[in-house]
């Protein structure tokens, strides 16, 4: 254990000796430390040992260089990653189409509800009109329906009202397709 490198340098100089070796010491302080090294065997031996380790590490720790095709491979990888946003675009396009379809179905449902209500109103009005007319004219209506020139008009009107009501009822229950609700 008499090896000065194991005993260590003078405490005041240890960090300066390392900085001197690493070239990090200010010139003025470096001059002082060199003067100390000339006079102090302990520090000079320790510094020599430290310098030897430093030199060996510098010689032995080396990194291989990057291969020349590093950039080309990186560009290729990035190009393959760039294709991914295209897939993302496809997904977002599908999502947009889905949202539009849902919106369209919702508006179709609203339309069917309106038509259903209109159909109900038409049926009610038709029934009321027919009832009132029936009550007002009473039995005298019967010959009109079965005889005379107006009977076709009355029957036609009643049939049209029933047909419109049936159509509205079918649409309200999705029995018939509507333009604008299917994409």
């Amino acid at each position, binding site marked *: 254990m008499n*090896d000065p*490198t*194991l005993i260590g340098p003078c405490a005041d100089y240890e*960090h300066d000796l*390392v900085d001197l070796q*690493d*070239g*990090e010491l200010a010139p003025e302080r470096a001059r002082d430390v060199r003067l100390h090294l000339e006079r102090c065997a302990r520090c000079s031996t320790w510094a020599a*040992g*430290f310098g030897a*380790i*430093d030199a*060996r*590490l*510098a010689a*032995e*720790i*080396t*990194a*291989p260089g*990057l*291969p020349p095709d*590093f*950039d080309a*491979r*990186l560009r290729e*990888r*990035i190009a393959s*990653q760039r294709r991914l946003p295209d897939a993302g675009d496809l997904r977002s396009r599908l999502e947009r189409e889905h949202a539009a379809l849902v919106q369209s179905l919702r508006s179709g449902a609203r339309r069917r509800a309106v038509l259903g209500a209109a159909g109900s109103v038409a049926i009610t009005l038709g029934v009321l009109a027919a009832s009132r007319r029936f009550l007002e004219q009473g039995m005298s209506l019967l010959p009109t329906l079965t005889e005379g020139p107006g009977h076709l008009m009355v029957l036609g009107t009643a049939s049209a009202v029933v047909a419109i009501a049936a159509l509205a009822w079918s649409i309200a229950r999705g029995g018939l397709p509507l333009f604008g609700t299917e994409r």
Partner: protein
Amino acid sequence: MDPGIDEHLAAGRHARAFDLVVPAYRDRVFRLAYSILRDRAAAEDAAQETFVRVWKALPGFDGRAALGTWIYAITRNTSLMELRRRRPTVSFDDPDSTEAQRAAENIATGPAQDPERDNLLRLLETLPHNQQEAVRLFYLEDRSYEAVAEQLGMPLGTVKNLLHRARKRLMELVRPDEEIAA
């Protein structure tokens, strides 16, 4: 850093900025990855992965940290993830973990040709992981404290302290070892 990178980033020209980032940082990124992984192919892969991540994240880079600091942090994370992937049972949270040391040792490939070199590097591998990494990077970066501090994300004083302790310990280890060898 190339001032052009800043200008392109500020103008939102991320692709142009990235074209400058790669040549400006690829060597340091590779050396940092190599200092962690100690395997050429693994370090190369980690460097590639780092730049892919940088490319993806560059539009979101807000400049709060220096670009280099940000890129080196991505490099360290990528390299440590690669280390974990290779040895999934090992925790690298503790930089002094002996398990982490052994895992890193085992990743190093290729037989050493020079027994003395092999000996010194084996001694280096007995040191705490953070000391090993600082020492390797210091010599890979041509003895630059600043480069090591930036790449490891540590204060300069911490790096100097790690290097000092590591090399002092190596001095202590080398002498008895060489006496035994003699």
